[in-house]
């Protein structure tokens, strides 16, 4: 190595963390469960990114109602998955719907994590009154049944993409805070934290540089799982009619709109269900694979 790169601060900082995350995907080779999960996730990411190229039709265009899967459209193109009761191509709706999901879910999760991590660090490290207040608040929020909480929040602030992100952040951050707090309580008794304290390091520096990097294992696993939960939430809210307003394609909404006709036209409900289940399965398997690997370390 050249002198220049040696004297730069090696391996501290969050750029390095991102690189490590990418590297750890290579580790998944050790866990076939994780590999399948990663494959599923990447599959949907690919579809979401290339949606305009994959979908043959405009997802909101009413073309030919009640077409069975595989029917060829009047003006060319095939309805590979059939059309719904309003004549929209289901495949295109699913493809574009993946964009919605894979846009809002990560944002909501990241937002929840930011709030949760900050709260958890403060509660776990500082302790005392700060911990008491934050823990009480999180206990109160967590004592609501989750969906009831969502319904009430959405009922009051209305349904929109942004509001859903707010609702999810609000409902998920206490759980994350609890996990981070538990990890911090364990890690702050380590000698290297005491060493940093005896050097006079500031609290925030210790929380972010000494403690948080060592908590990343369980947090990464939890993040994958939580992405799964968030996707379920978005789907359920859509199903209950509290999700994104129509006509934008929303997997949950698609199921709700078409379930009355499921007896005669099962394809309209089945495909969105398979889509959402496979994506969630991908994240769950990925989380399991990552957990296996971190246990083996």
């Amino acid at each position, binding site marked *: 190595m050249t002198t220049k790169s040696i004297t730069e601060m090696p391996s501290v900082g969050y750029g390095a963390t991102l690189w490590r995350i990418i590297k750890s995907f290579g580790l998944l080779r050790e866990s076939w469960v994780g590999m399948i999960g990663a494959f599923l996730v990447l599959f949907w990411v690919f579809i979401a990114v290339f949606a305009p190229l994959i979908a043959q039709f405009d997802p909101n265009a009413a073309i030919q109602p009640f077409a069975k899967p595989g029917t060829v459209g009047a003006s060319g193109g095939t309805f590979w998955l059939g059309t719904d009761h309003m004549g929209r191509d289901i495949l295109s709706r699913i493809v574009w719907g993946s964009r919605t999901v894979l846009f809002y879910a990560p944002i909501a999760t990241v937002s929840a994590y930011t709030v949760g991590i900050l709260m958890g660090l403060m509660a776990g490290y500082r302790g005392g009154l700060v911990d008491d207040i934050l823990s009480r608040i999180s*206990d*109160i929020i967590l*004592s*609501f*049944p*989750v*969906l*009831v909480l969502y*319904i*009430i929040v*959405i*009922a*009051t*602030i209305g349904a929109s993409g942004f509001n859903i992100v707010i609702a999810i952040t609000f409902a998920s951050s206490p759980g994350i805070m609890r996990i981070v707090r538990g990890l911090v309580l364990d890690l702050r008794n380590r000698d290297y934290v005491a060493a940093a304290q005896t050097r006079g390091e500031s609290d925030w520096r210790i929380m972010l540089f000494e403690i948080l990097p060592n908590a990343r294992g369980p947090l990464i696993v939890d993040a994958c799982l939580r992405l*799964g939960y968030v996707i*379920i939430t978005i*789907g*359920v809210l859509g*199903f*209950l*009619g*509290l999700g994104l307003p129509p006509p934008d394609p929303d997997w*949950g909404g698609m*199921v*709700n709109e078409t*379930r009355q006709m*499921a*007896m005669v036209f*099962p394809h309209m*409900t*089945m495909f969105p*269900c*398979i889509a*959402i*289940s496979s994506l*969630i*399965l991908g994240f*769950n*398997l990925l989380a*399991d694979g990552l957990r296996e690997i971190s246990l083996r370390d």
Partner: protein
Amino acid sequence: MVLLLLKRIGFMIFTMIIVSMILFMLLETGLTGDPATRVLGNFASDEQKELWRDQHGYNQMVVVRYAKWLGNFATGDLGTSIRYKGPVKEVLLPRLWNTAILGFWTFAIMIPLSLTLGVLSGMKEGSLLDRGISVFGILTTSVPEFASAVFFSALFVFGLKWLPGTSSMASGFEFKQLILPAMVLVVYDFGYVARMTRASMAEVMTSQYIRSAVLKGLPYRQVIIRHALRNALIAPFTVIMLQINWLLSGVIVVEFFFAYKGFGALLLEASLNNDIALLEACAMVAVVVAVSSQTLADIGYTFLNPRIRFS
């Protein structure tokens, strides 16, 4: 110990009061939009809105209204439902009872099943049974309730034609109609509880006191039942109590899907129809049930864990 109990119960009451305040602020005050506009719609005239507000006592001071409302609530007067045009109590209680029935059967099947399979797979970590249950558990928790409802309907209602598609109990109580909703709930939650139990059991099985018990020459059965289970089942017990909280969420989707006249469907209806009194009442009931079950879980854990009980 007694002090601990009192603290817990005190906190429970404290939580419920805070929650009621939050609910009240959100729904009854103008914090998030004028209630009159919400109920009467945007096109009502200002006079109509004012009249409505007066009629429903919205022009008094917030604190007074809150006190009145809380007082009413405590004495059983839950207000009037706009949609059902009658006292909320009369609509709420039978629905609550229906959900209780559904919940009972769900738990009656789910708990023994998940505990048994969780313990068995934890005992034989890494075995085929263990891997199978793990995979099955991941699969079932990856399918949202509405999706599994769709799949089960397709199979049992449309395909095999064994079960009815809706559970509205139109002609009196029919057990058959309870099967699909319960099945959806059981399948979804089983995975989580089974995996928690498995994790707890596996951790206990690798502990040093189990090694001591084996090396004392005790029969394997005694090691499992007397030594392992006693410690392994503490965590799952609390988890199961917390599933009551989960159940209140889960029933919303299931009842909605199968048109089962339960509490969850009522809550949803109330929110979609802006039926404020009903929504408040449902929310409060949900919170009371949830917080009580959590407190019970806490107390139970304290009781089951000798380290805390005798210290």
